[in-house]
């Protein structure tokens, strides 16, 4: 009976790669250890007890009639928030399509980096910064919020759309060209039917994200439910903070649920 040598599943590491591996592990551990010892973990005292604050946020608004009647006001703000997200994502969906074609490698070949650079630049800026800029430019209110949301969404949607375009099956396009169709027809009949369901799916997904993003835009004055939220926290009016959070959680969960269902049917 001849013994077979033990075979490892992994390719044997060279000394060089071992050295790199150990160096990386060492540096990472060092960073964690330094981080752990230099962070102050002490809790500074506060007049209000944390338990009482939690009760005022989550229990009182749901049990005290005085607060329950105020819910419609915040639901109104939340609807404005959803409207901002909806308008923003609609604009972004339309504008992201041409940018995505520009950024797709199989459409613009080596010029695709122009579109990609543009999209990366947009995504590098947080939407709150866009919101501050637009509040300064067009004034306080939901219009600034819509602009901020739409610009920011173009960054993500454009990139996702471009990836969808890059992954299409070129054979349909070939078939239409081979039967004498022109470029526009090849795009319309060969590319669009392949990408449309995924485009809409990504747009709906982005709408979910934008609803969440719009809730904080009000903090800088760009409309929606963020403004009363930040006001209530400054005044330590925890009952109002609680009501707002409950409205936000219910709306966001509902929208996620519905959009998830729609997206499942699309793709």
């Amino acid at each position, binding site marked *: 009976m001849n013994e077979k040598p033990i075979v490892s599943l992994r390719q044997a590491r060279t000394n060089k790669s071992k050295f790199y591996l150990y160096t990386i592990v060492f540096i990472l551990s060092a960073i964690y250890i330094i981080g752990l010892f230099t962070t102050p973990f002490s809790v500074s005292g506060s007049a209000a007890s944390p338990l009482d604050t939690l009760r005022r946020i989550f229990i009182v608004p749901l049990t005290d009639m005085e607060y329950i009647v105020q819910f419609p006001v915040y639901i109104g703000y939340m609807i404005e928030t959803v409207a901002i997200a909806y308008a923003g994502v609609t604009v972004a969906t339309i504008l992201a399509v041409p940018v995505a074609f520009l950024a797709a490698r199989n459409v613009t070949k080596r010029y695709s980096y122009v579109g990609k650079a543009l999209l990366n630049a947009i995504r590098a800026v947080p939407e709150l910064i866009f919101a501050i800029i637009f509040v300064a430019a067009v004034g306080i209110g939901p219009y600034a919020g819509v602009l901020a949301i739409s610009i920011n969404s173009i960054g993500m949607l454009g990139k996702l759309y471009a990836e969808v375009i890059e992954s299409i099956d070129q054979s349909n396009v070939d078939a239409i060209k081979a039967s004498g169709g022109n470029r*526009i027809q090849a795009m319309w009949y060969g590319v669009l039917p392949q990408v449309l369901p995924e485009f809409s799916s990504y747009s709906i997904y982005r709408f979910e994200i934008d609803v969440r993003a719009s809730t904080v835009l009000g903090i800088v004055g760009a409309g929606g439910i963020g403004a009363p939220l930040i006001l209530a926290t400054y005044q330590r009016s925890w009952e109002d903070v609680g009501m707002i959070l409950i409205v936000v959680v219910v709306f966001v969960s509902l929208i996620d649920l519905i959009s998830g269902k729609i997206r499942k049917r699309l793709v």
Partner: protein
Amino acid sequence: MIEFKNVSLKYPNGHQGLKNINLKINDGEFVVIVGMSGAGKSSLIRSINRMVTPTEGKILVDDQDIITFNEKKLRKLRTEVGMIFQSYNLVKRMSVLRNVLAGRLGHTGTIRSMLGLFPQKDIQFALDNLDRVSIHEKAYTRADQLSGGQQQRVSIARVLTQQPKVILADEPVASLDPPTSHKVMKDLKRVSREDNLTTIVNLHFIDMAQEYADRIIGLRDGEVVFDGPIDQVTEKTFEEIYGRPIKEDDLLGGDDD
């Protein structure tokens, strides 16, 4: 008539696809091109509608050199030279009927086609062509719901709907099982007979080639090594084309009738 005059094709990566091809294919002929994979069958067939462009020589289609064609003339040529692909190349998310009508795009204005406003007689014609390949009842089904054989018959209907003079079929049955392959080839042969279409088919199974061809062209390493009517073809001919003895793998079998 299609005429190749000293046609060579060298790909940018240096691979020599075709070497000095001289051929004449008459109107209404059913020609099968055989050869091993990499012999240049696809290059030859795709040169005729300029999906690839030869680097030397002339290809005359109805006495016009198509290698010099600009984009506009090329589109006109392609409406007259239909193509069937190995992987069917249907738009999977579109209905069968829309896929068949895609064959009319070369005859339809851009705006009209974008709005989906095909003339009623075109839609009727598309349905008639689906009927000819006996999948009329699948007209409103999504293309990806169909079996491989049905999808290839849809692509035959699509080609017929563009009313070509020539059909090029690049390995039309290579992804199908033997009985389905025979059904598809029989449909293809029948419609091309009925409409008197010049048909050029790439096949690599020699029994299929023998069964359906009027004429066989053998390719090896980008060169024509055999060209003759089917009654001159024997097993010996195929051994010459392939440059080795015939094996079981070269036969498809499975024709049940």
